[in-house]
């Protein structure tokens, strides 16, 4: 948002027109995936991310025409479906249900630093989908849509009848669960009458099961780091056999020492990069970037992703074109990887570079169009 406020100062009208032309050309041919388009509210932004909301479109061609002609820098739609999406105030729209949406990113300082963390966000995205949504919540993987946010992270749109009618509190509970709010693995352990430490079992589900699996994985990597006696394989196997059935006593640790030892594992279980504050998930009236639309701070496609494992945002999210662009750099950029090449520029450099890359540096405020 802060970047966008500056946009009007650093970009002149000519640059804005040029960018609009590029965006408009993209929207001529872009592929929609907006199920039930007529039931969604849209919001568009020219200066900010959302300058106007409560828009609605009856079908894809109406939306396409709007985008070609008006060409906003940002377009978002409601995760919610409404009877009358364009009516205000929002309470009168007639809420019918909503996709369950998650926003994942890392907050990091620096204009270009954030893009180095996209790989890590992707790992968390996969964990969110596989460990949490599919394993714990039983969501079918065909109902999970991955979308690159077009800038610093990823979105997940769950389009499932199991989650469609969940209210705001229910969605908040799901985010809290995923973020591990209130998780205390110490509570997993207790002593029985005979002083035996009883804990989670390998077959447990939810966080208990996740804890045991992660614990065993870490233990097998370096058993004697956990307890010196485990250099003796027999002792280790005996302990592991015990934990399978929930018996954590086959180690000379007090319950307090055990809790201390497992802390790093406990801390690694929740997914803290799921955005809890923006309300994307639990505000059931929030707008979210429309999949496959362009992001006005980067020119990247907020791409819907078919194969998440192989997706590389810094190449796959660029507009496909062979066109080149003349730009002049107004600040230094060093060793930045985009479009499969590493770029470094000095202030004052005048270059001809691929159009999507030039667009990116202009929108980031590092370059301007060459006069």
């Amino acid at each position, binding site marked *: 948002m802060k970047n966008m406020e500056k946009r009007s100062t650093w970009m002149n009208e000519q640059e804005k027109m040029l960018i609009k032309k590029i965006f408009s050309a993209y929207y001529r041919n872009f592929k929609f995936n907006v199920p039930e388009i007529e039931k969604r509210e849209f919001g568009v932004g020219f200066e900010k991310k959302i300058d106007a909301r409560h828009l609605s479109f009856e079908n894809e061609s109406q939306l396409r025409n709007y985008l070609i002609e008006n060409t906003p820098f940002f377009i978002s739609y409601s995760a919610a479906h409404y009877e009358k999406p364009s009516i205000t105030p929002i309470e009168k729209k007639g809420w019918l249900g909503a996709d369950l949406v998650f926003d994942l990113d890392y907050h990091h300082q620096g204009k270009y630093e954030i893009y180095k963390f996209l790989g890590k966000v992707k790992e968390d995205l996969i964990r969110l989908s596989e460990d949490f949504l599919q394993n714990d*919540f*039983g969501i079918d993987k065909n109902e999970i849509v991955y979308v690159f946010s077009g800038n610093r992270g990823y979105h997940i749109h769950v389009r499932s009848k199991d989650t469609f009618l969940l209210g705001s509190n229910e969605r908040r*509970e*799901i985010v809290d669960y995923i973020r591990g709010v209130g998780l205390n693995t110490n509570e997993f352990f207790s002593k029985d009458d005979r002083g035996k430490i009883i804990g989670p079992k390998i077959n447990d*589900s939810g966080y208990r099961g996740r804890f045991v699996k992660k614990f065993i994985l870490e233990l097998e990597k370096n058993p004697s780091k956990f307890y010196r006696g485990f250099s003796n394989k027999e002792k280790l196997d005996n302990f592991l056999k015990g934990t399978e059935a929930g018996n954590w006593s086959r180690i000379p640790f007090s319950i307090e020492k055990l809790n201390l030892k497992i802390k790093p594992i406990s801390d690694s279980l929740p997914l803290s990069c799921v955005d809890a504050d923006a309300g994307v998930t639990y505000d059931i009236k929030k707008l979210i970037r429309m999949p496959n639309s362009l992001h006005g701070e980067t020119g990247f496609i907020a791409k819907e992703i078919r194969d998440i494992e192989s997706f590389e945002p810094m190449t796959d999210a660029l507009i496909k074109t062979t066109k080149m662009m003349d730009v002049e750099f107004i600040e230094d950029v060093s060793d930045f990887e985009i479009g499969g090449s590493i770029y470094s520029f000095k202030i004052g450099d005048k270059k001809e570079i691929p159009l999507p890359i030039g667009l990116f540096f202009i929108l980031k405020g590092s370059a301007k169009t060459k006069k």
Partner: protein
Amino acid sequence: MEKSYLFAARYPFSTRAKRIIEISKLAPNSQLIEKGLERIKSALRNESLKFSSVSDSDLLNEIGIYACARMILSNLNNSYLINKFSVSQAKRAYSYLNQDSDENIAELLDEFGFKLKSNRDEILIHFSTYLKYTPGSIEYRLIGRNIAKGYVSINKHELLRLLQEAIRIKISQVPKIKKISPEIEAAGKSLVIELPKITPEKLSFKKGDNPPCIEALLIDLKKHLNLNHQARWILAVYLIKKNTALEDILELFMNFPDYKEKIAKYQIEHAKKQGYMVPSCATIRGYGLCVSNCPVKNPMQWKKVLYEKYGKKVDLDE
């Protein structure tokens, strides 16, 4: 038929009860209205009247009493009364459920759309049903639960507790009835006289004086919603730490549908004596009661941070 009447008398909010009213053409009469009124009054006293007779006509009347009570409530449209009534009637239903046959329980679970799977000795409930009807107290938080492939493992007591909550929600949704008989209207009027006077706000609860989580609790309180234990505790400790007088806290807490002065007084005095601190924002988040993203770590810092540091004009949403 008798079996059906018994079920409907125990669970007069059920579809089966509704059908019986339609078939038997049961209409309000002065006796039923009076008893309906009595049932609402008993809810105000935190009692749930139960029936002892099992004769068909008495059982039929039981259904009629409930229907009349609902008509009176619909006419008055008073959220305090409605919430009091729904809490007490849901508790009443729970006490029957606790002793009822699996078949009858199953009928109600089905009616409320509970998505369940049974698996040997545990009950598995789909997370969508679980989250919809969770009583909200800490032991029901998803984080401490075994959940796999969409299903949460619960025991029978918990299942019935969720069902109680589903019943409470259903009873609290009172549709507006257009044509109301003069007798129902008169009954409503007599009831209003007995209502506790809703407290005019003595405390300084101007918007912005309290952090958003506390504001949210106060709003719920004024709507007479049934806040869970943690929420009440946080509110009580917060008010104590703000040096609010015991009588003022009690006046506020009177808004709870299950308010009992003796118990509330004891609990507040106990909390005061123990010198409990207001829990941190992290803990409040843990209870699922944090509603904002404010720059404080404890609700008590709210005024200090926002007013002294940033001045009054702080918009949290931006």
